[in-house]
């Protein structure tokens, strides 16, 4: 079997349409973030308490809410979790004083109302404000560090122009991913940050494969116009791009469909990331390279003209 054999799509010619598409996607994402009043951070970063319980029998959400509120947690958010037996109770606060923390008090209240053996605690996540801000700082640092280090690596392996173009594509991907996260209402947790970093890695991977071919073709055919070389390189790597993205998407779809509720948001972000990463390596990274090249050429021409005048 052979897909996209001798493909000759004019990717570069249509780059302006791609710019518009990207601008619209990024704009939509930013609009969503603004309209939602910023991104939704999970307890990992804000600090807070999350308790997931499963009752043996059906429990009304309103009933659970009144129990939780009577225990003194007025601001608790209660979220059903598939059916009327599983609930997620979330508090904004976590201040642990030995033996008197939110978790104990809440579980005591639930035990009092529904019986000690009437439910199972599936999951507890309680993060103090200090740890939350530490994790936040670490996440930002991790994203920045991976960014800077991959850039240094790319600058070392390729020319600086490739590095800049790769960064443009990566920022593009991150912006769209954040927009998507906001639109779908996924919380930013440690897992989401890992997913975003994976997307960065994947998108770079894709971009590098295309750039690798561009680098090779530039060496082979020095006379060819820059735009033609870029277009040819993208078309030559197209079968690989499609097949790799396809297989990765297949595994991610399996993860999304069968991986369970805990991992589903993670898989969803990754699926979007793979699609965007593939798109950006063709329609953002390579055009960016072309724009940088043309900008340099125009400047050189202007300088020459300037020199001639003088």
């Amino acid at each position, binding site marked *: 079997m052979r897909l996209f054999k001798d493909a000759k799509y004019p990717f570069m010619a249509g780059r302006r349409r791609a710019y518009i598409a990207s601008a619209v996607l990024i704009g939509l994402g930013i609009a969503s973030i603004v309209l939602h009043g910023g991104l939704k951070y999970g307890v990992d970063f804000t600090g807070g308490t999350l308790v997931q319980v499963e009752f043996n029998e059906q429990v009304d959400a309103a009933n659970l809410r009144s129990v939780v509120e009577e225990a003194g947690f007025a601001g608790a958010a209660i979220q059903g979790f598939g059916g009327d037996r599983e609930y997620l109770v979330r508090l904004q606060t976590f201040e642990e004083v*030995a033996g008197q*923390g939110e978790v104990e008090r809440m579980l005591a209240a639930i035990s009092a109302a529904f019986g000690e053996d009437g439910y199972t605690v599936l999951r507890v996540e309680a993060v103090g404000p200090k740890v939350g801000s530490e994790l936040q700082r670490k996440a930002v640092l991790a994203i920045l560090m991976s960014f800077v280090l991959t850039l240094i690596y790319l600058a070392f392996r390729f020319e600086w122009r490739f590095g800049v173009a790769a960064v443009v594509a990566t920022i593009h991907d991150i912006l769209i991913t954040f927009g998507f996260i906001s639109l779908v209402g996924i919380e930013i947790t440690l897992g989401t940050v*890992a997913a975003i970093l994976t997307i960065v890695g994947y998108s770079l991977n894709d971009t590098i494969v295309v750039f690798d071919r561009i680098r090779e073709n530039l060496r082979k055919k020095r006379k060819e116009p820059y735009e033609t070389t870029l277009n040819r390189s993208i078309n030559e790597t197209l079968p690989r791009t499609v097949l790799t993205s396809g*297989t990765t998407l297949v595994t991610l779809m399996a993860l999304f469909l069968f991986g369970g509720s805990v*991992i589903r948001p993670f898989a969803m972000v*990754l699926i979007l990331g793979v699609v965007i990463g593939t798109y950006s390596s063709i329609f953002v990274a390579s055009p960016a390279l072309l724009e940088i090249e043309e900008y340099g050429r125009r400047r050189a021409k202007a300088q020459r003209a300037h020199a001639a005048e003088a």
Partner: protein
Amino acid sequence: MFGTVRARIILIAVLLLLCGWALLPKEGPTGERESPLKLGLDLQGGMHLAVEIDDPDGTLDAAAKADAIDRTLTTIRNRIDEFGVREPTIQRVGDARIVVELAGIDDPERAKSIVERTAFLEFKIVRGGEEFRRALPRIDRIIVREIGAENLEVVPILEPETPTGLQELLQGADSAAAEPGAADAGADTTTSGTGTDTAATGAGTDTAATGAGTDTTTGGEEEQELRPLTALLLESGQVGQFLVREQDIPTVERYLALEAVTDAIPRGAELKWGVEPIAGGADSYRTLFVLEDEPLLTGEDLADAGPAARDPTFNQPYVPFETTRRGARKFERGTSRHVGDLMAIVLDNKVQSAPVIRQTLGRRAQIEMGTGSSLQEAQDLALVLRAGALPQPIRIVEERSVGPSLGADSVRQGKMAFAIGIILVLLLMVAYYRVAGVMAVIALSFYVVLLLGGLAGLGATLTLPGIAGIILSIGMAVDANVLIFERIREELEAGKTPRTAVDTGFEAALSAIVDANLTTLITAIILFQFGTGPVRGFAVTLVIGILASFFTAIFVTRTLFMIYLDRRAAGAPIKI
């Protein structure tokens, strides 16, 4: 060095054997066979706790804090050892934090209370309370001055019928408190009926009448004589004990926390809450004890504690203990001077019970637990007393626990997703590349063994995001194969011989594979550095996965191609 097919096959075989050995079930420390793959807390259930020394006022200097952390670490280790958890992780992270990870436990809340409990035990004499009662008007004035009359909560004045209400309450309180005290079965126990002393009851009721009475008579002119604290304290009728309605506790605590109020409390006395709520009519009350601040004995003087038992007569759990020689002398001296007085057993600043000292106590005695306590709570108390108190109270700054059922669900679903994903990818590869696809399948199977063997061999922990990391690195392993195969196809189309095409294909694809894998490796290493728990698991599997995928794509697939090229009829085309 690995130019010949034979040498390559030997290397691959050795690696396979190593991985197979790493994946064999091992005898665990408990003797039972354990899976060689360590599952993270999110997969098998368990608890992750991060604790810090609780020092809200910043009174500890750096050296004291470091010392406290060291001792806390040792104490928590001892406690967990006694509690009996398989392969616990108890380690210091940074300067000021201790992380405790307990896998596969059934009752995280119980384990948590064992870890976090300070278990600071003191035996203190209950004061007569007269001195404190005399200081009350002054304390009331201080509170009014500090908080301001307009900011004070309006306290409903006690109704004239209160004395009767109180009488009822006293009956209730008496019967509730008498049970622990009366359990005097042990030879040398600290127990006796709790303050059924009639004189004390008389005095108490008297004062209550005066206290409440004053308010009643001046009913119309509250402003003249505001009694914010007195109004909330009800006489319990027992020596040195007041009752406070549960809903008033925060207010009373706020008053008592004022610095000027602390200064006004009589010298040598201190106030402590009782641990058990006391039901009285519609309301529930908590006892406020007036205690000597110097303890007769502390937990440090204990040599041993337990085993906890339940009193057969009163069905109430207790913890027998034994003091050190020095402790015994201290205890004898202290209790001999206070025969007939009440002695409060204070655990973590809460009064557990306050029995009467019937006779001088020595080496052996026992701690009576509240009536609502279970035998398990008594056993846990004995455990923490044996393991020792924490040098400073600790504060939990992070708690994550996953129930075993959710963990099991995740494992099952993760395995399923893993299997489905990999089978689909293999089918795609074979359909698309035929013979070369089969080679990719063999290489990928080798990759899975290498990855799992690597995880087991390095003792890495497999977490849920770790499974995602595996799937991602499978994607990269496939990508490497695809890059190579596509290149070989291109070279064949350019008219090269199969052997040259394969060689050129591998060489040309190498740079892209190296660059792609290295950039991902950078990300993975950074994630490992900054990540905690699950994210770290993701990073570890990603690193091992990248290394394994790199090796299989470059080395294993190449070897398979070499075999294929050798066995093929001379001049026959290769199927790719």
